Every structure is written in C-alpha cells, then in structure tokens.
C-alpha cells in the first residue's frame, strides 16, 4: 500500500506492533480522535473510516475531566464525550469490538490509568487495555521521571509507552526519554498545547535534528498538523510519521451528532489527504535524493 512496505524485508523484526506498523507503512499516518465524541457508537464508525482512509496507527482518547495538555479543540471533544457519559468501561467495550488494520493506542491522562482498579495503581488499566487489543499508551501528563510504574506494567503486558519530546527537551532528559521510548517518539512540533495550526512549526526541523542518533525508535511529529501539505513538510524534514488530531476532531465537531455517515466519510477523506501528503514527500525524497537513506535505520541488529 505504500513505498515503505516494500522496504520491510530489509528491516530487523521488531517486537512492537506499533513500530512494525510504522516501518511497514512508512511514512506513517497516526490519527487521533476522542472516544465517545459524540458517542461511542459514532466513534466506532469514525475509527473504521480512519482505518479505511489510510491511518496506520489510531490513537483513541479516553476522556479525562482536566485535560491540561490539550488545546480548546480537543478539550471540547473531551467535554462532549464526558457529557455523553463515556466511561473507561464503555471505552474498553468499544475497543473490544473494533477490528482495524491499524494498531490502536489509548491516549489519556495519568489519573484515568491510576483509578481503573480498586486502588490507585496503573496495572489493572494496562491489563485491561492489553485484553482489548490495545498496543500502546500515551499519557501527556506523565514525564519519563514518573513513568516507572507504567513502564513496568506495559512491559508486563506487552504494550508500548509512547513518550513525548518537546522543543524544550534536551540533554540528559532527552537521553533518558529516548532510552525508555518504545513504539514511537511523539515529537511535539511546537510549544503549547494540541490544536490545528495554519503552518508547520520551524521547531519541527530542529527537534528532528536533535533526535538524530539517539534511538532507533521511529519519530512521529504532532501538534498543529491539519493538511496534506503539512504532512509532506514534516516527512521531508525526516519524520517517520505524522500525527493528526485536532483537524480530525474538528470534522467530528462540525457534524455534531446529526448523523455519522457524512462525518465518517469526511474523516476517511481527510485521512486519505494526509496520508497522500506524507507519501508524496517520501516519494519526492526517494526521487530527488535517492542515494540518501531517509528512512530510519535501526542501530541494533
């Protein structure tokens, strides 16, 4: 389906379904939507549409009442999902019933993980996520320093913990994060919170340069990506994947709850546009710069 899938035979086998999905579909499109916005039934249709549209990984947001890392768009989606009564149990029921080519990740805040079981402990959540077939977790309010319990549980159940690298992440902290990263590294394109922007931040290039040589984990860029051209620009800058969230949530929000068919179609088309942008850039790079290997080369054998 993509150029990179042809390269898969050159790569070492990876344990991670997520890494595998990125390598196999390089450059990958990673799509985010908030589960339960406007309802869990709608979310099922939307996820399937994104899967059809070419999303290589799908992040499902489990809504938390205090989303401090989100911009107004995703905060709005979260509020709608909570108002619709979305719970972790309902979320996992949804995931249980999903069948997608793209592996799924759950994106939520740390307290949601902690509270899933009877005591404040992340293990029950991770176990349930693994049962539901989820491949990884992203926790925007969990820096590497506090991630030990989550990493241990995810190791136990075979999930990846995706860490975010911000424009301000440097030095020892960058080392630490890269050494713990699995699945992919979420490269935050700019300071601030999530939200669709008109252009790609210049910080993207700097960040990708800073990460070079730190780890063989794929790098995907998010925060502000909304168009195929953005995706192309990001891939040109050397990213292995493009993460899109707010632009998709905007589509969901625009349709409200009056029939999910048009929303699903629009989501599918948006995914297609973004994936095409990413692939165009990768193809251009291969064509104009064929001798230079831009796709990631794992250091370990």
């Amino acid at each position: 389906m993509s150029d990179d899938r042809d390269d898969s035979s050159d790569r070492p086998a990876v344990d991670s379904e997520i890494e595998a999905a990125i390598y196999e579909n390089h450059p990958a499109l990673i799509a985010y939507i908030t589960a339960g916005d406007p309802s869990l039934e709608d979310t099922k249709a939307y996820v399937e549409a994104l899967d059809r549209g070419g999303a290589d990984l799908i992040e499902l947001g489990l809504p938390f009442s205090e989303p401090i890392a989100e911009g107004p768009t995703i905060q709005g989606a979260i509020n709608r999902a909570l108002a619709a009564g979305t719970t972790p149990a309902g979320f996992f029921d949804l995931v249980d019933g999903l069948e997608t080519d793209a592996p799924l990740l759950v994106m939520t805040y740390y307290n949601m993980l902690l509270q899933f079981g009877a005591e404040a402990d992340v293990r029950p959540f991770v176990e349930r996520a693994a049962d539901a077939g989820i491949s990884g977790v992203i926790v925007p309010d969990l820096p590497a320093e506090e991630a030990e319990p989550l990493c241990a549980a995810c190791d136990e159940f075979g999930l990846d913990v995706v860490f975010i690298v911000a424009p301000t992440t440097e030095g020892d902290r960058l080392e630490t994060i890269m050494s713990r990263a699995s699945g992919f590294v979420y490269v935050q394109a700019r300071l601030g919170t999530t939200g669709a922007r008109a252009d790609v931040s210049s910080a993207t290039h700097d960040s990708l340069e800073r990460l070079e040589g730190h780890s063989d984990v794929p790098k995907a860029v998010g925060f502000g990506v909304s168009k195929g051209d953005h995706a192309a620009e990001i891939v040109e800058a050397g990213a292995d994947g493009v993460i899109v969230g707010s632009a998709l949530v905007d589509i969901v929000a625009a349709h409200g709850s009056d029939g999910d068919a048009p929303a699903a179609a629009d989501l599918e088309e948006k995914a297609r546009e973004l994936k095409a942008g990413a692939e165009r850039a990768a193809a251009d790079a291969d064509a104009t710069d064929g001798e230079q290997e831009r796709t990631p080369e794992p250091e370990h054998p």
Partner: protein
Amino acid sequence: GSFGEYGGQYVPEAVMPALQELEDAYERYVLENEDGFMDEFRERLRDFGGRPTPLQRADRLSERYGREIYLKREDLVHGGAHKLNNALGQVLLAKYMGKERIVAETGAGQHGTATAMAAAHLDVPCEIYMGRTDVNRQRPNVYRMRMNGAQVNPVDAGSGTLKEAINETMRDWSTTVETSHYVIGSVVGPHPFPAMVRDFQAVISDEAREQLLESAGRLPDTVIACAGGGSNTMGAFDAFIPDADVDLVAVEAGGSSLEIDEGDGIAPNSATLSTGSDGVLHGAMTKLLQSDDGQIMESHSVSAGLDYAGVGPELSHLVETGRVRPVNVDDETALEAFHRLSTLEGIIPALESSHALGYLERAAGPAAKTSNEQHAQEAAEEGLGDLVVVNVSGRGDKDLETVLEETEARDLAAAPDVEVFDS
C-alpha cells in the same frame, strides 16, 4: 513524590525543563539564600506586605470558649490575605531567574490580585487568566488586577471557572515557558511548587510561634487553619510540625453535605482530606475528590477559595502520617462563625477563615457542652487544648455579597439583621 507517596511532577513534557530550572532556582535562592534572595524577600514582605502581622489574643472568643484563643491576623497583609506571601516570593524568584513575564490563573480572584500587586511592585509584566463566569461575578477583583497593570484574560471555555483558567494558564505557560514563570497560587502543582509555596508561606507560623512564645511563654496546644489548596494551612503549620505536642487541625469545607453525587460528578463539599482518595491532579499525586472512574468531581463550598477538588500533596502526606488532623465544617457553621467574629471581635474574616473559626465553635462552643449533642461528643474526643491559635487567613470584604445572600436564605443564630434597607 516529594512527600512520601504524594507530590511528583505529572506535567506535560514541554514544561519539565522549566520545572527543573525552577527546582534549581528554588534550591539556590530560597533554600540557600544565594544573592541574598531570602533577605530581600523578607524585607519586601515587611515594607511592602506589612509583616509581621499581629498574633492577637481574642478577648471575647477566649471568654466564649473558656480557653486562650489567639488569632494570627493574615487579614492585615497587603491585599487582604496571606496570598501575597507566596505571590511576592514567586515573582521575586522569577526576577532572580531572569524571567520576563508572569502568568497566573485565578478563581475568585484573590491569588490574581496578589500576583498583580507583586508584579506591579517588582515591575514584571503579568497576565492573569480567569474564567468568564468568575470575571463576571468577581468584578472588583478584576478591576484591582487591571488597576495594578495586569492583563486579565477572560477564559470562555466550559463553565468559565477556575478549572478552565488553570487549563488556559497551562497552555500559555506550555507555549512561553522559556521566558515566563507560572505563579501557582497554593501548595499544589508539580514539585517544587508545593515545597516552595510552603516555604514562602511558612512566615505565618515562624512569626506566630515566636510571638506566642513571647506573649504566652509557651507553645500552643492546637493550631487551626482552613484548608482548600492548603497554602495558609501549610503556612500556619510548618514551624509547628517538629513540635509533636502541638495538635494541627486542618478545617476543610464540608459544604452543604458530605454525601457525593457520583452520577452527576458533584461533591457538595471540598473535604478532600477527609473524604478524598489518592490520584493525580494538576501535576501532583495527592488526595482528590474524584469519581470511581477517576474523573475529578465538581466541588462546592460557600467559600470560593476553598472550592477545590484537590489539596496540597504535603497535607495529604501529613494527614496520612497522622501529623495533621483533618476535620470539616459545613457552609452554615462557617457563616455563623463569620458573623460571630465580626460582631464579637470587630474583625470581618474571609469565608475561608470562617471555617477555621467554625470548627472552634463546634469543638468548644456552648453547644459542645451539651452532652447529648452528636457534635459535642466529637468535640470532647477532639479535645481542644487550653491555648489555641487560629489562622485568620484573610479579610471578608470580598465576601460581603455572598454572606448577605447566604444569610438571608437561612436562619442563623449569630447573624445581625442584614436585611437590605429600602432605597
């Protein structure tokens, strides 16, 4: 975590480097007094802030309760509450760190006004985020901030209250973290905020301890402070923590009831230490009012300043280890205490502080002597000592309208006639 299992830094990656920078600055300037930071802080607290505040023996309360009652008069700090202690410390620290700009969030506006005053005093540009609903119902505080030259940014999202203001401030800070300092208003948030804010507020108990040793010749039996986020609480307790015989009582807002409505996600109280469970909110592991699923509850208190679903992680730790005793009094008891202090002592306390005073009444007031009263039995078990310090964390001028409304809706024994005159 920094306090047993509580504390930590549960924040977006983008601000982690800023927290490390802050931690470094906190250690150097606050803990080690580098470049005379703490000397300058204390001098400005004195000359600008009006410290030390008195530790006043309350004659009529002492008579009423049959023991020595002393009031720590934080209502006399510049701005009308203990909030300036922290705001001044943090803005000064931001200046030492070379930050060019201050951001802060505010709910009822007390922390915002304190921050705006401190920023004006120290000549640092300042932006305050405040929910639109709060902007509309706390106009005088909005005016005060703007008159001090701060930019007030109304936040339209959601219900337009503290929670949205915090989110928006976090967004601003996540974007401007290299040049801005986020002045958190209580002993909450990620490390080093809880420790740092506590250290800035510790001047309350440092002074009170010394003042009481001088005037009464001994340590108190009990120190009582209200607890919302907990900055006045930690400020009032800190110096007494090593004094194992001093009973430290944190009085939370019991609101209208301790029962929670899990379905609607509403706790009609803010009694986090008494009824909450462990979780992560706004950057720290602490006790929270949350649903079984982990959603943060909407809390309630007649006092806006106590109306918060979390609490400082150090307080959670001190409660967990038994050093601090959490209690709570309801809206009505607090309102009664508001009127009682106003009429008996000529001090109009903040509704926050009225909770601490309300506990005093419950534990030692006339009704506490009636043995067949449920509260009286509690009080006897609680056993207030002979020498009690109550922290009057702020003045109640800001609460007049609320108190009038809430008083007219009730039949309060301690309230004067406050029926509005015909115009």
